[in-house]
């Protein structure tokens, strides 16, 4: 099995705080992490390799500091890590990102499976996985929480709002993995030291992916961000200050006034 896992470096939103005065995000000092569901994709790939043998390649598009995310993937046990980084890739929307990843994966030659996290915690679009499958012209199953590989076929449980469906398709295919799929392993302590001191993250630019600059980065992005804004803060709630029985009475009458009861 040759498995490619696409990962993204994102700010750790658990560590993001709001500036109490301006209401905007404080980005300073926020650590960067591997997008959580991409870790589920890595875990799925690594445990599949343990079952069936083969190779796991982690690939990410991002600025040079995304190197750290790929080192962490190496410390978790992937065989090879590739960082797609070039000024020509900058400003990409999901379409241009999927195009860049797709070109790079084609350069890798034969592969059996592409795994991606369901969506990233910063953009929340869940688009890159599906667009990548389209670019590579291979079948895709999204929102996968469990899957098996048999005789060149993949059978997957795809999460729906009120249950799941079981789908089957042929390899090569792309799956997007949800957090229910597994508990990602920790990078190991010796793995971390090796990842930084002995292993390499390959850096690929526009020459290595042999891409058409018109299709990449800002130029290749059909969507543009016009304006970004913070939603107005929620109105503060009201605490009814009274003895419990009296407070309950007041609460019920207020709810009735607003036709909530």
């Amino acid at each position: 099995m040759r498995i490619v896992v696409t990962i993204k470096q994102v700010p750790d939103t658990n560590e993001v705080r709001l500036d109490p005065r301006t209401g905007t995000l404080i980005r300073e000092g926020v650590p960067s992490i591997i997008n959580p569901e991409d870790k589920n994709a890595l875990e799925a790939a690594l445990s599949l390799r343990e079952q069936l043998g083969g190779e796991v390649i982690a690939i990410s598009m991002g600025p040079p500091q995304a190197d750290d995310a790929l080192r962490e993937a190496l410390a978790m046990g992937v065989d090879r890590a590739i960082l797609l980084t070039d000024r020509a890739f900058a400003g990409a929307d999901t379409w241009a990102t999927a195009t860049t990843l797709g070109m790079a994966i084609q350069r890798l030659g034969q592969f059996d499976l592409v795994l991606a996290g369901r969506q990233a915690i910063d953009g929340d679009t869940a688009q890159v996985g599906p667009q990548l499958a389209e670019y590579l012209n291979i079948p895709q199953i999204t929102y996968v929480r469990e899957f098996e590989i048999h005789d060149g076929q993949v059978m997957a449980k795809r999460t729906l709002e009120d249950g799941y469906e079981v789908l089957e398709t042929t390899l090569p295919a792309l799956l997007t993995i949800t957090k229910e799929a597994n508990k990602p392993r920790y990078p190991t302590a010796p793995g971390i030291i090796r990842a930084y001191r002995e292993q390499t993250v390959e850096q690929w630019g526009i020459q290595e992916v042999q891409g058409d600059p018109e299709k990449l980065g800002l130029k290749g992005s059909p969507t543009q961000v016009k304006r970004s804004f913070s939603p107005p803060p929620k109105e503060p709630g009201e605490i009814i200050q009274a003895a419990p029985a009296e407070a309950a009475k007041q609460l019920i009458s207020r709810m009735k006034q607003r036709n909530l009861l």
Partner: protein
Amino acid sequence: MDFTFSKEHQLLRRMIREFAQQEVAPLAAEIDLEERVPFETLKKAAQVGLMGVPFPQKYGGAGAGEIGYCILMEELNKVCGATATIIGAHTGIGAMAIYLDGTEEQKQKYLVPLARGEKLAAFALTEANAGSDAAAIQTRAVRDGNEYVLNGSKIWITNGDIADILTVFAVTDPSLGARGGVTAFIVERDFPGFRVGTKETKMGIRGSSTAEIFFEDCRVPAENVLGQFGAGFLTAMKTLDVGRISLGAGCLGGSQAALDLAMDFAKSRYQFGEPIAQKQAIQWMIADMATEIEALRSLVYRTAWMMDSGQTGREFSTMAAMCKLYGSEVLDRCVDKCVQIHGGMGYMKKYPVERMYRDARITRIFEGTNEVQRQVIATNLFRKVGLRLR
């Protein structure tokens, strides 16, 4: 001068913090209450390479050096002093003695499985009549053919009853005293004549095991002499020197956890219509804690850096003693203030603060009391100016 942690140490800290939060913290209260060694946690720690963090990878370790090991002790002690103590006695002194003074063969045979966490280590020096006066040990080792026969007992040995491999110090020539008359041995628990005695019930770090061990005509192969014959006391002192840095790092973690809890509480506890953090009395305690913690952090990591860069002379030994001394006293003040800020809630077993307060107390005592540390520091300082202290 550069105070930033390397990228690998930063990722190591993030990974250990996650491990500590998810695997260690949930058991902290339970193992304290039940006085139970968390073997399941030790197994998981071994799987992710946390049982041999400072040792080179060729010996089964993580290759993260003393700095990496201090990060481990700091992060573990934030959530559970007992688990940190077990791993500390195993890695920081038990296995460390073999790493520092073992032959290549001994390292392959003993250090590798210890560093991988397949086996557990202990360090056995203290005896009933040899605590701070470690040179007064009475356990005897007498040569008999290709073996040494050990007789005597050790007390208060962390991991004593659960260790597979113990670094043991015994008198080989009573006429020579500590310098020349003590030898270190590597003892396997299955050697005939090794026996475990009573397990102690303790005030704190109750999830770690502290036991009495006996040697009754315990036969140890001569090849298991650790370091130079007769130089065991040096091995002990050298190992303890190193252990003192990570002990300081553990105190740093405990202190930081106390500060974090105290601040969370001061922010959310309302009295007189406002968070108690608005009171100067609380603010001053927080400021003092934070200041001492930062001073300790610098001391600990500078000393760890000295070790990793091979600067292990007398100044290093003095600094290591300072790490232990200052670390345990900062911790003592921090947990005390943390309890005070929490008020009644700090005294209740329902909250982790009470356990942290009990766990902290041992750090001023074990691995060389603070009185001994002060003596080490003063002796080294005066020796530098030409005065030998009695």
